[in-house]
C-alpha cells in the first residue's frame, strides 16, 4: 500500500487536471501539482509511519529493552532512518516512474534531482516522526501530530498562496519551516535545466532540518528514565 498509493493519487490528479484550461506555452497545472506531490508524499507518509512505529516501541517497552542491549542510540536511529528511507526510495521511484513515463510529467531539470529531493523529504519525515513520537502517549495522539506538524508546513510553503504574497508575519514563519525550502527546490528543478544556487541552498537547508530533527530525536531516547 505504501508503495502504490502515491502513484495512484498522482494518477488521479492527472485525470483531475485533464480538462483544466491552461495558457499555451506555460507548464500545465498538472505539471506543477505533480511535482509538489512528489515532494510532499514522502514527507507525510514517512512522518506517519515512523511516529507510529516508534510510539509503539516506546509504549510496548521494547524500546527500553533495546536500550539495555549494547546497541548505540545513533545505531538505532540510523537503522530506523535507513529502513524507512529504503521504503521511501521504493515509493518515490515508482511515483517518479509513473509521473514521468506514463503521465507526461516534464521538468526542465533532471528527474534524478526530483527523486533526490523526494528522498531527503522522506528522511526529514523520519526525523520529525521520531521526534514527535516522544511527545505522544498513545498511537492516537501520534496520528494527531500529523495535522499539527505537517499541515502548517503545507499551508505556508507556497502551494496554496505563493509565499511572497503572504502577510509578513506568515512569511517569517514560513521561512523557518523545512517544507518551504523543499518545495522551492522542487519548483527550481521544474523551471531550470541546471541545478540553481537557490535549489542547492534549499536542499542543504532541508538536510540540515532533517539532521537536527534526528539529533533531537536521539536526545529523547534515554537509557535511564525516572
Amino acid at each position, binding site marked *: 500500500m505504501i508503495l502504490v498509493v502515491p502513484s495512484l493519487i498522482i494518477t488521479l490528479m492527472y485525470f483531475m487536471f485533464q480538462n483544466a484550461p491552461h495558457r499555451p506555452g506555460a507548464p500545465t497545472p498538472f505539471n506543477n501539482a505533480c511535482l509538489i506531490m512528489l515532494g510532499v508524499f514522502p514527507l507525510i507518509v514517512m512522518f506517519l509511519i515512523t511516529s507510529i512505529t516508534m510510539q509503539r516501541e516506546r509504549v*510496548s*517497552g*521494547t524500546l*527500553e*529493552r*533495546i*536500550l*539495555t*542491549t*549494547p*546497541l548505540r542510540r545513533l545505531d538505532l536511529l540510523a537503522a530506523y532512518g535507513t529502513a524507512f528511507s529504503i521504503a521511501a526510495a521504493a515509493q518515490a521511484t515508482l511515483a517518479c516512474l509513473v509521473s514521468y513515463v506514463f503521465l507526461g510529467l516534464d521538468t526542465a531539470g533532471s528527474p534524478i534531482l526530483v527523486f533526490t529531493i523526494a528522498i531527503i523529504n522522506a528522511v526529514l519525515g523520519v526525523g520529525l516522526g521520531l521526534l514527535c513520537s516522544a511527545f505522544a502517549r498513545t498511537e492516537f495522539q501520534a496520528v494527531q501530530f500529523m495535522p499539527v506538524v505537517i499541515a502548517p508546513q503545507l499551508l505556508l510553503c507556497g502551494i496554496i498562496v505563493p509565499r511572497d504574497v503572504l502577510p509578513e508575519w506568515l512569511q517569517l514563519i514560513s521561512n523557518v519551516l523545512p517544507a518551504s525550502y523543499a518545495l522551492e527546490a522542487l519548483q527550481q528543478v521544474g523551471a531550470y535545466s541546471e541545478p540553481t544556487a537557490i535549489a542547492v541552498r534549499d536542499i542543504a537547508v532541508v538536510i540540515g532540518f532533517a539532521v537536527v530533527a534526528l539529533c533531537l530525536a536521539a536526545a529523547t531516547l534515554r*537509557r*535511564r*528514565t*525516572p
Partner: protein
Amino acid sequence: MMSSSSDELLRTGVEPAIEVQNLRVIRGKRVALEDISVQIARGTITGLLGPSGCGKTTLMRSIVGTQIIAEGTVTVLGHPAGSAELRHRVGYVTQDPTIYNDLRIIDNARYFAALYGTDSQAADEAVSAVGLDDHRTALCSNLSGGQRTRVSLACALVARPDLLVLDEPTVGLDPVLRVDLWDQFHQIARRGTTLLVSSHVMDEADHCGDLLLMREGHLLAHTTPTKLREDTGCQSLEEAFLSVIRHSTAAAAG
C-alpha cells in the same frame, strides 16, 4: 532442589554479582526505594518477594540501569549498573513480555541476538532452552500468555548473560508451566548465571536459594527459605512473610 545461599558464597570472598549500597529512588513525588543495601552472590537464584507496588520492579530497574537513582550506588559484576560493559552481560525480562508480536518467535530471538552481537545459533539455543522448538516459526501475536513470557525470556537468553533479571516471570501462568519455568531457571543457574527473580506469590520462594523480602520501598530481610521458617516458626512461607511484616511494623511503632 536448593541452590547454595549467598551467605556461604559471599563469605568465601568472591566478588558479589550485585552490590547495592544505600540506594534511594524517587518516582514522581513518592519515595519508591529507601536506603536499600544488599549483596547478591554469583551463581545464586535470589527471589525478590513482596506485595505489588513495594518497589520490586524499581529495584530491578536500578540494577539493570534503566532507573534514575537519587542516592546510593549499584554495582553489578564489578561495574556501575547500566555501564556499557554490562550491556551484553545482563539480561532483563520485563513484567509484560516485550517482544514484537508481528514477528515469528525465531525472528524475535534472532533480532535480539543481533542486538547483543551473538549469532543465530544462540537464537536457536535460546528458543530450545525455553521449550518452544515446536513453535519456532509461529507468529508471536498468536501465542498464549505463557508462551509469550517464554519468548521474552528467550530474547534475554540469547545474550548468554552472566546476570539475568526476571520481573514476575511466572505471574498468571498455570501451575504446570510455572514448574516448567522454574526448572529452566535452575538449569540456567547451573550454567553459572546469577538469577534475580521477583514474585508476589510466596509459594515460589521455595525455588530460590536466597530471599529478599520487601515492603513499601524497604528491604525487610535477606534470608533463605529454611532460615525464614526457623526464625519465624511458621511452616508456610506465606505465614512467615506476614510474621516478618508484623515484626517490622511493631519495631517501627516501638
